[in-house]
């Protein structure tokens, strides 16, 4: 097959796919090298980027997916008769903590937010945005949480490195830092720090 023809087939596959498509699945289907599949997908991505089409090819969770343009959101919501959903601040804060500090325990989330976050954690689990990674190997073996594929898909992230950079506030002045006397458990949570 000529390259142009392969690209056309890939477009068709992307159209019928039910989620982001990884290069290896394209390669497997078309019996080409993964490297070639990757290059062709990136070329397609650029083609769409430079055209004024109503949708673009986006890299999400390691795969490629056609997504409509954010500036058309309102028209599409009207078309689908859907209301824009809103995340509560509690949900967003908790998501942010899980995303940047994973693997993280409920106790760490509660401490960082300063409030009991059990309800929010449960909601985020129900929505599949966070998942249980296992248990932490400390006394009490608390459950540890991390973000899910659904999280990456919802926020349109290629992977966790695509998260917005965490703003670095000026750290404590040196004299205060020297004073730091954090209980042992908290030190653990600080060391596990952002990605």
């Amino acid at each position: 097959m000529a390259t142009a023809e392969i690209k056309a087939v890939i477009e068709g596959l992307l159209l019928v796919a039910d989620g982001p498509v990884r290069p290896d699945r394209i390669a497997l289907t078309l019996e080409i090298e993964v490297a070639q599949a990757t290059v062709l997908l990136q070329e397609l991505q650029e083609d769409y980027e430079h055209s004024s089409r109503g949708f673009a090819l986006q890299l999400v969770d390691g795969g490629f997916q056609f997504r409509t343009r954010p500036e058309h959101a309102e028209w599409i919501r009207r078309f689908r008769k859907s209301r824009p959903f809103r995340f509560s601040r509690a949900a967003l804060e908790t998501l942010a903590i899980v995303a940047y500090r994973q693997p993280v325990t409920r106790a760490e989330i509660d401490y960082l937010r300063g409030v009991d976050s059990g309800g929010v954690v449960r909601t985020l689990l129900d929505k599949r945005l966070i998942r249980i990674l296992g248990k932490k190997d400390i006394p009490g073996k608390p459950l540890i949480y991390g973000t899910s594929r659904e999280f990456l898909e919802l926020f349109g992230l290629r992977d966790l490195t695509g998260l917005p950079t965490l703003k670095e506030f000026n750290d404590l002045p040196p004299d205060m830092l020297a004073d730091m006397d954090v209980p042992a458990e908290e030190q653990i949570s600080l060391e596990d720090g952002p990605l």
Partner: protein
Amino acid sequence: MPYQIDLDSFKGPLDLLLHLIQKHEMDIYDIPIAEITAQYLATIEVMKSLNLDLAGEFLVMAATLLLIKSRMLLPRDEEEAAEETEPDPRTELVQRLLEYQRYRDAAISLDALPLLGRDVFVRSAPEPEGDGGDEAEWEPVGLFELVAAFRQLVQDNGDESVHEISRERLSVTDRINQILATLSERSSLAFADLLAGVVSRNEVVVTFLAMLELVKMRLARLMQNSRDSSIWLYGVDGVDDNSLQQDESLGYS
């Protein structure tokens, strides 16, 4: 009093404190503790008088502020002050506030991303579901789904006792599997080794029950060379019938 703030919107004491610090243009690295405490207490008084559902954490923070304030008021020993060994009582609070502020801002950044179903949309394709009868792989699935599925089943069966015992059952099950896994790597296991690293009484009991269960299911056998010598656990495949007394002699059959 100019409390023109949406009292219901505070997500917690840290959120409220940050708000007060910003509103009164305080220096977060050098918080005037008396002033912030007064502001904070006044705000939660208003919240109380409005019968807002005041989470316990707000009161805990009030106590913390008062504690810090009292510590700051303590006269500093001159020698101590010279050595500067006394930590600033505000340090941990400041650290928490800064940390919280990072995530509060990160939350706003997350919300600004093009969200699927809100800002961007994809083709709505039907979800494939199947038993994976052919060569296709299964999609990874979360632990949460697994627990939820089990919980649903247990509820549907009205098996109320399961809730109580499942925790213990699971740990016996864990032990059984650990023992089986060990036995798959080596043919025998000393009873004493089984309890190595076991600390709590509960764990000893669980280990013992797991062992009995294994013997009962004939997945393992207990043997010893003579009375009072150490007890060995053998996987069913690794049993040498001749050299050792059978498990019956231990009275578990």
